């Protein structure tokens, strides 16, 4: 894909600071919070980082659904640690977005008002334990493919948050794989549970890379700005290439009858996800959209008195300290 920088011609009316911004991008350097940046760059970043942060926070729910029912104490501990990481990752990302001038409270308000987006994958339900395996293996696997290139995103705080997130996520996919492996080595019912779950999660996981390249309006500019490094289809194909041998190890079938190795292209040919379903879920008409939002709203609303209490206590303490000093 050819990348063209969104600049006006040199010698035109481009400002010195815009020129400097373009130069930094061209040199593969990083943009830092106090640098001048085009308003559209700032907006794109806020949208993307906030969406990513919201996804981590909403993404806690499908898994927290199984914390209380995890079938062994070790699995319970792993699941808590994982959901906890997701809260942490949400925090890192909110912090990165905050450097662009939008507060976490404001982003949270947007989330619970339903005006901000989050990854639609988390609107799918988790009716079985095997879904903990599928989420780790497929959903986190896809997320990692998307996220690793973001460690080199041109906006410094975002890239740094992503480095931390990618390091911590290395265990997420492995533990999911292990859950499925244990199930596949177990009773026929356990194996069936694993396959049934993978059948449900495979296509939604592939949708996580976003719409096909020819239907992705914001992609080209994000790539030119080096917020995004690879196209949706490119990452999706790469991901499937990694899944195939892993599925063989697990003894699971990937539910795509069109999946075949293409010798000429040295890549897999594959079927298409149901993009109508994708748009439906994205539009808020997925299995769990309403419940996910309700849970977040409830936690926020019911936590308000606690947050206010701590703030009131802090204000009183600092007033007391000032009196003592004076």
């Amino acid at each position: 894909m050819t990348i063209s920088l969104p600049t006006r011609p040199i010698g035109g009316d481009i400002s010195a600071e815009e020129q400097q911004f373009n130069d930094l991008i061209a040199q593969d350097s990083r943009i830092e919070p106090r640098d001048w940046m085009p308003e559209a760059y700032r907006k794109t970043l806020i949208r993307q980082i906030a969406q990513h942060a919201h996804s981590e926070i909403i993404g806690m729910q499908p898994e927290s659904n199984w914390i209380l029912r995890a079938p062994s104490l070790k699995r319970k501990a792993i699941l808590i640690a994982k959901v906890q990481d997701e809260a942490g990752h949400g925090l890192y990302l909110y912090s990165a977005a905050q450097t662009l001038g939008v507060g976490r409270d404001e982003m949270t308000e947007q989330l619970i008002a339903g005006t901000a987006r989050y990854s639609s994958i988390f609107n799918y339900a988790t009716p079985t334990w095997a879904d903990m395996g599928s989420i780790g293996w497929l959903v986190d696997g896809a997320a990692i493919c998307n996220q690793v290139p973001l460690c080199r995103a041109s906006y410094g705080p975002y890239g740094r948050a992503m480095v931390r997130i990618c390091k911590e996520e290395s265990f997420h996919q492995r533990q999911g794989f292990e859950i499925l492996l244990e199930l596949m080595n177990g009773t026929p019912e356990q194996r069936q549970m694993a396959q049934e779950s993978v059948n449900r999660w495979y296509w939604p996981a592939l949708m996580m890379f976003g719409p096909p390249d020819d239907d992705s309006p914001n992609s080209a500019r994000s790539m030119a700005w080096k917020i995004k490094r690879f196209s949706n289809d490119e990452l999706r194909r790469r991901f499937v290439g990694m899944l195939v041998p892993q599925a063989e190890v697990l003894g699971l079938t990937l539910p795509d009858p069109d999946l075949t190795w293409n010798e000429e292209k040295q890549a897999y040919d594959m079927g298409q996800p149901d993009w109508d379903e994708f748009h439906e879920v994205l539009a808020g008409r997925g299995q769990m959209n309403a419940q996910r939002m309700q849970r977040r709203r409830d936690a926020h609303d019911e936590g308000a008195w606690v947050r206010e209490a701590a703030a009131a206590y802090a204000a009183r303490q600092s007033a007391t300290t000032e009196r003592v000093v004076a």
Partner: protein
Amino acid sequence: MSTTTGTPPAAGDTTAATLTSDEHGNIELGKLTLAAEVIGQGTVAPPAVAEYALWLGDDALVLAQNLGWWISRAPELEEDIAIGNIALDLIGHARSFLSYAGSASGRTEDEMAYFRGEEEYRSAQLFEQANGDFAHTIARNFIAGCFQHALYERLQGSHDETLAAIAAKSIKEVDYHVDHATQWVLRLAGGTAKSRRRLIVGFADVWPYVDELFRDEPLNDELAGVAVRQSTLRPAFDTRVAAVFAEAELEVPVGFTATGGGRVGKHHETLGPLLAEMQVLARQFPGAAW
């Protein structure tokens, strides 16, 4: 899936090289020394010691199970993480105690956790108290933490090496749990009128279950020098509570004393549903590995 003559690429090979070398963000596993998850594996507990280990293991597990509910529902994201850490610590303690308890009868930690019925549980009823609102949770956690801290401090000197080792590891973590609860007791008590009211109600609701924690049982006579006599922990507990309550300007609630009986399998009505939820999947597949 059909393949032609060529061999499909192995996971993450050449194509992936155009990304970055650490495509999956793997940390270098070689650098980490993994610490033992469960203390005392391999030692077999005498039956009476096993029974005592159940008390402590069940206390920790039941509290952890209660706290697990909060994760994704806490008042602020930072609190989701803090409560998660406390739950993880408690699961760690429970695994050590239950695995030691199970050693007497050749059972695993999971058989102990998932395949004992309500009447076989030995948790004190304080740990079984429902989360309620955040103030209730903090009040319960504060009492639980103060009790466990006093207990583990003394249990470190137990003649039973495994119990002593579990206590020595756990006390550092419980120290933090007490601190977390204390900070919130101060903030809720000294925050707004609403938070103060809720905290006072929270303490009033759980206080009837304090007494049971400090009652001696016949097992204490049998395990002199091994188990800690609960009644001897009360002064340390009262001192700590008094200090925090003084700073928070709270008064020790007066009211009834619950009959208790957790150590002999008589439980608060919250335990049944808690165990039903915790055990449902494991019991659906008895003997399965996860």
